[in-house]
């Protein structure tokens, strides 16, 4: 077998078919379109079945905690009558400590039912531990491929912790230096082992997240007398936004505003060996959030089930220093010590709650576990070692990779609005560019598909196409 980079990548479609039992070609339509809902329903699990699978595997039904003291703090900074009630879905209560258990649960159920000997994924985040944890319940073996260290051999402490946790749960962990080619190695692993490809971006993975949206709607109705005004979602690869929004819709909560939030890492390149250890957040940041929004099919499957621009109504960014500050505030005001990356959306909600009325609810839809390496103290110590200056002042002045700025006062915490229209236009341009198409090549099906992709009308799509 020829295992050069080019040869393995050329076999990708064939490897996907065998490792996912899914032929993506069947959904292709028009020149660049595909039947998104058809693909999402292909594996045939209903939301009720997924809830049952997750209950069997101790996943979900996590508490929705009202953050009274953070809400009081917001109100002290807000005009009279403003300052929504902030609630947080404590996803750290899942078996491996994050919402990623939901994504892993359905893949592992499917892999077991179809007789796969194991599951594999390329992931440097919480998903690795989630997959091993769920695979253990299903008596499957696990291989996790992680991007861990730079060319000097220095590991990002948060990812080193992910290695430890995966190994503690019994996985085989393959650690790589910086580069997106961990996906190339994953393909080799899938070919060699015949394991199930438990990608983060399959319909199974996204369907597993829909239960969060559903639970939020149900818990708010039962415990708080009505739906939240908004759900704030930490946005990286797009699965969290897509799954949560779909779950809310399935619960009849179409009017709940979907707000994505990412840590602003502008200026740092995600595939850079130099920048790798200059960032204090390894996920939930714009380095994933923007490229995955504007070109979802960059993922490790031919068609990504996570398509955030179909669902995002607002997208905001916060800075690293602000998230660390709110992570500390969550601990000292609410008694909840949780991981910083999961608090990205909480930081945005802290700022956004000031816009909403006191009787409205804003739900932050996840927390994650914390521990050595991924605790905010560990990340700040590592940042200092790498020459990042830690300052207190105006967080807007933070420069990712150079400074981390704690707010000198909580009223300086800000959710900075990202205009979604340029991202939507970028998605449309990328859809054409990646297939070498011109606007005149597109059919009506393609125009409608692009309109759905960006959650706007075909007139918006035509406007972008006319400007090309």
């Amino acid at each position, binding site marked *: 077998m020829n295992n050069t980079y080019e040869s393995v990548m050329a076999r990708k479609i064939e490897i996907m078919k065998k490792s996912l039992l899914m032929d993506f070609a069947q959904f292709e339509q028009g020149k660049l379109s595909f039947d998104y809902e058809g693909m999402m329903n292909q594996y045939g699990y209903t939301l009720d079945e997924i809830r049952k699978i997750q209950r069997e595997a101790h996943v979900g039904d996590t508490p929705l905690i009202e953050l009274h003291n953070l809400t009081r703090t917001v109100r002290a900074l807000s005009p009279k009558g403003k300052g929504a009630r902030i609630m947080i879905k404590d996803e750290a209560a899942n078996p491996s400590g994050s919402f990623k258990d939901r994504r892993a649960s359905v893949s592992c159920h499917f892999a077991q039912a179809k007789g796969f000997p194991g599951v594999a994924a390329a992931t440097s985040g919480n998903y690795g531990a989630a997959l091993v944890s769920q695979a253990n319940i299903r008596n499957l073996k696990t291989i996790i491929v992680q991007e861990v260290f730079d060319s000097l051999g220095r590991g990002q402490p948060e990812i080193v912790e992910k290695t430890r946790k995966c190994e503690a749960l019994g996985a085989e962990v393959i650690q790589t230096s910086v580069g997106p080619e961990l996906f190339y190695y994953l393909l080799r692993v899938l070919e060699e082992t015949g394991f199930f490809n438990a990608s983060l971006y399959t319909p199974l993975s996204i369907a597993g997240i829909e239960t969060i949206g559903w639970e939020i709607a149900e818990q708010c109705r039962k415990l708080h007398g009505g739906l939240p005004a908004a759900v704030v979602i930490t946005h990286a690869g797009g699965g969290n936004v897509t799954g949560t929004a779909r779950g809310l819709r399935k619960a009849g909560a179409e009017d709940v505003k979907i707000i994505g939030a990412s840590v602003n890492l502008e200026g740092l390149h995600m595939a850079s060996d130099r920048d790798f250890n200059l960032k204090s957040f390894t996920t939930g940041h714009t380095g994933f959030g923007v490229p995955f929004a504007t070109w979802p099919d960059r993922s490790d499957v031919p068609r990504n089930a996570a398509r955030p621009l179909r669902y995002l109504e607002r997208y905001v960014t916060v800075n690293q220093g602000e998230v660390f500050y709110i992570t500390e505030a969550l601990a000292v005001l609410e008694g909840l010590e949780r991981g910083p990356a999961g608090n990205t959306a909480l930081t945005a909600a802290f700022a956004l709650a000031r816009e909403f009325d006191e009787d409205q609810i804003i739900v932050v839809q996840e927390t994650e576990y914390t521990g050595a390496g991924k605790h*905010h103290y560990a990340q700040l110590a590592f940042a200092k070692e790498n020459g990042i200056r830690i300052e207190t002042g105006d967080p807007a002045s933070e420069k990712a990779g150079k400074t981390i700025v704690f707010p000198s006062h909580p009223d300086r915490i800000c959710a900075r609005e990202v205009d979604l229209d340029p991202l939507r236009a970028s998605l449309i341009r990328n859809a054409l560019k990646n297939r070498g198409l011109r606007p005149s090549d597109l059919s009506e099906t393609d125009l409608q598909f692009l309109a759905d992709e960006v959650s706007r009308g075909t007139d918006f799509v035509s406007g972008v196409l006319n400007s090309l």
Partner: protein
Amino acid sequence: MDIIRKGSWVQIEWILLEPGERPEHLPPETRRVPLRVKAKGILQEDAPVGEPATVVSTCGRVLQGTLVAENPPFTHSFGPQIPEFIGLGDALRSLWRTSDE
């Protein structure tokens, strides 16, 4: 030189892609260096650190590389407390304790 015994739990390392084999779209500082891989497994023959070795991984795969160490420990930590955050709870409470009254 330390000889590690057959049957020990060890870490090995190998080069997966040399710089010239890496995709062209990578930033230059990444493409200039090889893509390295580390993995752990059971050592199949006695071998010194720094020399070629074969291991069998957790999932039963046979992997070959350079022997790095016997069962290296995890050394990542929590780091020290952050002086800037000392007293943050009191500072934040003082905002609403005053404004409520």
